Every structure is written in C-alpha cells, then in structure tokens.
C-alpha cells in the first residue's frame, strides 16, 4: 500500500515537472541516438565489405607470384617474383579440365596518366579478354579488350570511373588519346564502377590495357603478377589446388623441401580475411559504442545529480513528515528508472529514424544492431540510476533540517 502510494506519487511528480523530467531524459536520449546511429552505420559498412569479400566467389582461386603472400599484401606494388609466366597460365588451362577460365594479369602502381593539361596517377592493369568474365567486371560504355587487341599489342585502354572523371570530367572520352607514361593510348571503354576494395582502395581508379601491350610495350617484362582461375565446380577446389601446386613446382623446377615461389589463394583464405576484417570492425564499433555510452553516461550522471541536488529541500520535507531513507530511495529509484527507460525508448526510435535518414542521404547501407542498442539502453540506464540514486542517498542521510536549509 505504502510502496504503491510512493510510486504513484513519484509518477505524478515526473508528470508535474515535465521540463525537469525531460532534461533528465535527454542525456539518455542523446547517448542512445548516438549509439544507434554510429553502430547502425558501422554495421552497414561492415556488411558491405563482407559482401564484397564474398564476391570473390566460391569457384574462384588465385595464383599469385611469390611464396607465402598474405592476402592483405596482394596488390602491393613491391618487386614481384619474376617466375610466374603466361605459359604457366596457358599450361594450367590446358592440363586441368576442372578449370573453366583463367585471367592472368600484371599490374603497375602509380602510373602517370595525362590528357592534355590534366594529369593523374592510377593503377595500371595488363589483362586478357577473359578478365571480364572471371572478375565479373565489364565496361559500361565502349568495348572490352579483345583477342585482336591482344594479338596486335594494341594501344587501347579501359578507364575506371575515377580516372575518367579526373581526366575528362563530363566529356565523352571514347576514342580520345591519353598518355600512359610516354606512350599514347586510345580510350576504348569505360569500366563498371566497383567502389571500394576490401582493403579500402578505390577500385575505380584503374586503367586496364591488353596484357600483351602491358608486358612488351609498357613494363617490358615476361612474367605475371597473378592468375585468377575460375572452376566449373567449387567441389573440385581441393584437388585443383593440389594439381596446380604440383604442376607449377615441376615447371619452376622447385626441388623437394624448397618453398613455393607462388601462393594459391582459395575462398577459405578469403573467408579468413573476411573474418579478420570483421574482427577489426567489431573492435572499432565497440570502441565507438563505448565512447558514445561514456559520453551519454556523463551527461546523464550530471543532469541526474543536478536534478536531485535541486530537490534536496523536497527530500528534507518528505523526511520531516515521516519518510524514511528507504522511502526516499524507492521514490528516486523509480523516477530514475522511469526516466531512463522512456529516454532509452525515445533514443532508439529517433536513432533508428536518424540512421535510416543518414543512409538515404549519404547512400550508405544501414544495419541496426539490436544487441548493441540493448546493451546501450541497459548500461545507460544503470548509469542514470546510479547517478540519480547517489545524491538522493546522500540527501536522505542528512538530518531533515539540514536538507531543508
């Protein structure tokens, strides 16, 4: 009866002092909004990266030049091991029936490109016509590299959207002449946009030219950076990897006990990388969530503390008319609970709406993580309750006349 009356009285109090209740609530609301938005955007970005990693494909594997290459080092522009040859690629395709398609390629980082006064730096890839199907990477305008281009060592190129924008702006680049290094190339097509790579690089800042042209005219090399291989069936993955391994070791004359001079990357490796990225992301998200919670918690603690201190007199009066310390604690605990709970709900709603809006405006994927929001609401409620209860406890311990002063 008594508890019920105290709770009823506390609720009436909250309603009567709407502004005060609102101010108590706002810390929680802001904290949870921040948490919801940050975490949703973060999880969205993580989802996007994971999706890209998965696009590597279950039927794909990659042979890169050099032994013990980590997947994170792929695409780095350091000195390549010069043992992986185009003949290797063609031999593999011929000898292993499980292989559906191969895409040998080479690359050069930081290639200087010029179109009249406009200049930029990009990654130059030497590729074969099969690159399009193996990487699922076509042109949106113009034409892809053909076998004729390969045979004739044609000086034609495909531009990534970033390069296109840098050099041509709004102008149609098809048929225009650009300089890559000192060599003139004709723009044959515009590549489909691929956005950001799992490693964070701009996959649209690329120029692709025929592999033969790359090897003989540009880089003057006879070796490859890597071969991406597409299988007919992912079930043949393990045997194919073994086959490739033994064939390449034999062709490269590697005696028993000597390590490989190439690395085979399979979807398993890619999944491992994805998990590693996911782990980093989770850590980052936890950090962000932690910061927003601490900030929210500090705001809540301050406002609660100020609010309760302001009500010292009320606590004194309640004690003077017969409230014991427990009654006071019960009232403030209930008030803090009601405020933080309501604040948490409002925060989740506003945060969810905010995250969705942000996603639409900035064209980012959004993924709301309910677990982290729940953790947020619970922990900021605890902070709010402790912050609200502590000063009430202190005031309740005073002699009534001290609190009334």
């Amino acid at each position, binding site marked *: 009866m008594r508890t019920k009356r105290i709770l009823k009285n506390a609720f009436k109090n909250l309603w*009567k002092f709407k502004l005060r209740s609102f101010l108590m609530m706002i810390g929680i609301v802001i904290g949870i909004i921040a948490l919801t938005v940050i975490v949703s955007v973060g999880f969205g970005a993580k989802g996007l990266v994971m999706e890209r990693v998965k696009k590597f494909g279950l039927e794909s594997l990659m042979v890169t030049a050099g032994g013990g290459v980590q997947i994170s080092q792929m695409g780095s522009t350091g000195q390549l091991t010069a043992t992986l040859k185009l003949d290797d690629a063609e031999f593999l395709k011929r000898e292993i029936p499980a292989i559906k398609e191969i895409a040998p390629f080479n690359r050069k980082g930081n290639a200087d490109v010029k179109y009249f006064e406009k200049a930029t730096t990009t990654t130059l890839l030497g590729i074969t016509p099969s690159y399009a199907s193996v990487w699922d990477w076509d042109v949106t305008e113009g034409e892809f590299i053909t076998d004729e281009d390969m045979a004739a060592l044609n000086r034609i190129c495909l531009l990534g959207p970033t390069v296109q924008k840098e050099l041509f702006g709004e102008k149609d680049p098809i048929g225009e002449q650009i300089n890559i290094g000192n060599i003139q190339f004709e723009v044959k097509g515009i590549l489909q946009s691929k956005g950001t790579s799992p490693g964070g690089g701009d996959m649209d800042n690329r120029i692709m030219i025929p592999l033969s042209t790359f090897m003989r005219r540009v880089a003057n090399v006879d070796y490859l950076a890597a071969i991406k291989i597409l299988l007919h069936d992912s079930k043949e993955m393990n045997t194919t990897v073994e086959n490739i391994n033994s064939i390449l070791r034999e062709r490269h004359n590697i005696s028993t006990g000597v390590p490989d001079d190439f690395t085979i990357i399979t979807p398993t490796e890619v999944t491992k990388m994805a998990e590693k990225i996911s782990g980093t992301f989770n850590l980052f998200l936890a950090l962000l969530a932690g910061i927003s919670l601490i900030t929210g918690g500090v705001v809540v603690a301050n406002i609660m503390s100020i609010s309760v201190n302001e009500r010292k007199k009320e606590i004194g*009066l309640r004690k*003077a*008319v*017969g409230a014991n310390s427990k009654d006071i604690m019960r009232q403030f605990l209930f008030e803090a609970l009601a405020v933080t709970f309501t604040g948490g709900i409002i925060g989740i709603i506003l945060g969810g709406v905010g995250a969705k809006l942000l996603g639409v405006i900035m064209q980012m994927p959004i993924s709301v993580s309910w677990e982290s929001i729940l953790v947020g609401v619970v922990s900021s409620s605890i902070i709010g309750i402790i912050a609200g209860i502590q000063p009430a406890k202190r005031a309740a311990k005073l002699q*009534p*006349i001290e609190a009334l002063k």
Partner: protein
Amino acid sequence: MNNIIVKAERLTKVYNKGVGGDVFALRDVSLEIHKGELIAIMGASGSGKSTLMNILGCLDKPTEGSLFFEEKEVSKLGDKELASVRNKKIGFVFQSFNLLARTSALENVELPLIYSDKVNVTKLAKDALNLVGLADRVHHHPGELSGGQQQRVAIARALVNDPDIIFADEPTGNLDTKSSYEIITLFQKLNKEGRTIVLVTHELDIAEHAKRIIKVSDGRIVSDELNNSPRNAETELNKLVKEVKNEN
C-alpha cells in the same frame, strides 16, 4: 508523569565553524513539555530557539544531551522508527510553509499520509483542510493561495496524521498582522481541543498568546514561566477587522 510528551536533558548543539572556532547554538538546555500545553519559545534571531525546536521536533540531533519522546530515547531510534515518530507523533509547521510546488493543497496535505498505514487518505486530508477553513481551496496550488492560506495548508498537513504534538517555527514570520492573528486563532482553537503546540517566535505579542513562555538567549533558557492570562487571538482578530471596517 505520564503526561510528559517531550523531555530534554542537557541539550547542547555545537556548529563547527572552522576558523572562528566552534559556535554553541545550545548550551545545557533541559525542559519538559506536557500534554495539552501551548508553549511559545521566544528569543532574538541567533538565540538558538529554532535549533531547540528542531531538536525537540526530531528534525535535528543534539551534539550532547538526550531527548526523550514519550519516554523513548530518540538517539536510540533507528531510521525507520524515527521516521515513524515524525510521521505519527509530530506535526511540523515551517516559517516558509515548505509546500510542494505545482501540487494541490489536497495533495500537499496528503503527503504525510503517503508514509503512513492509513487507508482513507483523501478523506483525512479533506477533513484537515476543512478544520483549517480551506474546504473551498482543496484543488488550489500554493501559487494560487495567499501567504495565510498557504500556512493553513501547512498546518492542515501537520494535523492530518493526528499527531501528539505540533511544532511551529515562526509560523507568522512571513505573514501580515491579520493573517498572523488568524493562524494564532487556529492554534489556540486546536490547543483548546486538546492538542499540544509549541511555537517559536521572536515577537512578544505573538508569544503572549501562549500559556507558557520560554525565553532563550545565547543558547540558554533564561526564563520559563507560565502565562496565566494568555491573550485571545480571536478577540484581537475581530477587533482588527472592525477597525479596518471603520477606517473604510
């Protein structure tokens, strides 16, 4: 001796003021309050009269000495028992009313009942408001009431749990003459009905309405005398009303 409500033995209250040394608000004060008394504790500001009343009313603790409330030693009571004494046995009226803002007169009077075991809370609160003549102001908030009316709400709050003793600290301190007489009239009426009342004042003409006047100076009781011919506030109130009418 059974009619002693409060017994104070050698109460001393010291405030530690740091640089200036200790300040004695009360020194060695002993007194007894009997059932049915109407006592005025008088003294200049800083004399220690309010400190004495706060200790007698269990709102403060003495530094030394003991206080017995109905033969129980107050310092030995736990938090719950002490709260229960304040709730059931004592009614307190403050100079600054101490009403809860944005809260109706009725809810203010109900406040002590929240912490009691009583059931018919609203009825008891309405009865108390009726007793102080505010039956028509039940739903008014403190901001909508005059000073005198606010103090009557506070008195109703002090009365609502039917306490054994009512303490009033300068109850007329913030009021004009007419309202003051109204409040004293109310106290005299409540005393006549058998309630024990202790009020603190620095005004002699208020104190002269009491049946016993205790004078406090420098933290000590300097005189404690029965007033055989207390003034009647109701008579004075009527006189005042008549004078005002004549002037108009």
